């Protein structure tokens, strides 16, 4: 096997006296979909925060395409091709849908202050290109008709799509999705799964997915890791995970009443 696209080696991280992540390892090849499951507080989101540079890992190393990225500031990691969404939808509520997507192109924009002020042809061309790219993404997410709407007014499902569009607009090579189906109804659920599949197929993205709904993880992911108290307790194919007694224990507790 060639070296994986994203590799995390022996990563640990403490919050005060609490070890939130313990000796965590991960390897994702380019274009793979990987699931990350585990009970609440298991450290899943912390893993995301560590990979994206919001926290600097206490121990361990993270490599992206062979390049060490732990310790880099978040905006550097983002422009190297790591993008994410958030469990609790961190959108800029008073900005429009298309502005979200355009801003996510920030690191790709080259025009300078002066050009922006006087509106040089180069600036205008770049703006037009970004606009076009943004519209294409909104199209893919099925929210093109909402482009000029302020996010605040959109239904929850549409906000999720805006967040996904924003994450994709940074032109990532790996996408970290933090519970993308949280709070969705069954209909929205099917749609968002379709969108994840398309992002994976059409853009060739690697995806790391945190998800509570087993149905989603089992259907989308090739391999799944289970985290409990910051440590990986099981790793394998969906079938293996489903039948792993340690996973069942972690979710349901040892002394089941049934």
């Amino acid at each position: 096997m060639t070296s994986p696209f994203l590799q995390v080696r022996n990563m640990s991280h403490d919050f005060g006296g609490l070890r939130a992540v313990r000796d965590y390892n991960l390897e994702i090849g380019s274009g793979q979909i990987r699931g990350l499951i585990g009970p609440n507080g298991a450290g899943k989101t912390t893993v995301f925060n560590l990979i994206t540079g919001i926290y600097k890992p206490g121990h361990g190393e993270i490599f992206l395409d062979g390049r060490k990225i732990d310790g880099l500031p978040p905006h550097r990691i983002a422009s190297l091709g790591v993008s994410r969404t958030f469990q609790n939808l961190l959108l800029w509520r008073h900005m429009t849908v298309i502005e979200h997507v355009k801003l996510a192109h920030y690191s790709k924009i080259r025009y300078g202050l002066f050009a922006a002020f006087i509106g040089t042809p180069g600036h205008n061309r770049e703006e037009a290109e970004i606009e076009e790219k943004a519209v294409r993404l909104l199209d893919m997410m099925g929210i093109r008709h909402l482009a000029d709407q302020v996010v605040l007014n959109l239904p929850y499902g549409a906000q999720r799509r805006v967040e996904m569009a924003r994450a994709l607009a940074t032109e990532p090579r790996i996408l970290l999705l933090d519970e993308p189906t949280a709070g969705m109804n069954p209909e929205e659920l099917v749609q968002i799964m379709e969108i994840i599949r398309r992002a994976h197929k059409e853009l060739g993205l690697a995806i790391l997915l945190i998800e509570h709904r087993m149905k989603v993880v089992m259907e989308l992911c090739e391999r799944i890791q289970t985290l409990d108290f910051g440590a990986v307790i099981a790793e394998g194919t969906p079938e293996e995970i489903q039948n792993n007694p340690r996973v069942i224990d972690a979710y349901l507790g040892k002394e089941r009443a049934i």
Partner: protein
Amino acid sequence: MSRPAFVESAGIEPMVIFLQNLVNALQWGSFYALIALGYSMVYSILMLFNFAHGDIFMVGSYIGFGVSMGLIALASSGVVALPNWLILVLTILFSMFLTSFVGMIVERVGYRPLRDAPRASAAITGLMIGIILETGNLALLGARRVSFPSLIETTTYNVSGVFVTNKKIMIVLVSLLLALALHQFVRRTKWGMAMRAMAFDFAVVPLMGVPLNTMAALTFALGSALAAAAGILFGVAYPVLDPYMGIVFGWKAFVAAILGGRGSVMGATLAGFLLGFTEIFVAMIFPSTLRDLIAYSIILLILAIRPHGFFGEPYSARLRL
């Protein structure tokens, strides 16, 4: 209520008095508006009250003084022919440029190390930086006032009894122009877009590839440049500068920034002018010793009704990861 006695006795039309005060209020409000913009930007984007901002206005004014003296010397030495109006324009541009570095240094040295510290620490730092700038000026230039060179002759126009000077027109126009430029910047450029986003959520923006430190520096640079412009315009209208001139202006602009609402360029500008109007018109009716007491009681009342200011959001969306 009967009309104030002085209006009767002076025998001037109340309408003329009103318009005259309106003109004065526009000029007075211009200073507040320009300073408030910097306060408001830093406050909304970095969630920080830069209590040194009034003193940056003072520093900008002094830098303007220095630059204009330099340019006057240059012009009188005969090296280059510089008409006075051009000296003024160059002074404004140069000083805005130089003062933006003062702002960036303040951010880098004073605030950046405290970014994750409690907000109270940052506020105290701001007050200290203010004192350092005031006393630093005192140490550097001595305890005396300097007078800003008169670069343009005052021409007074009598518009049916209302006196308007060319300086007042210029001050108001330049202020509005700068506010408009900032508005456009925030609306239309990628940096402006990033700033607006940061006002809603600080944490997510870097994940879009936006460098936080660059944005913080830029915010301070822009705010300080506007404060410098205000400082020079102030010097044109009231040509006596002293190291403590920024304190009261700073506090009042701070009030204007809050009154305008978080994250609103338009709000801060309007609130700055409103403050100017309130002060001037209160002084028109009541004894001027009561001016601030009454003016700021009115502002307090407005804030009691609209605690988030004119254009502020009902609640802050600052989320932490």
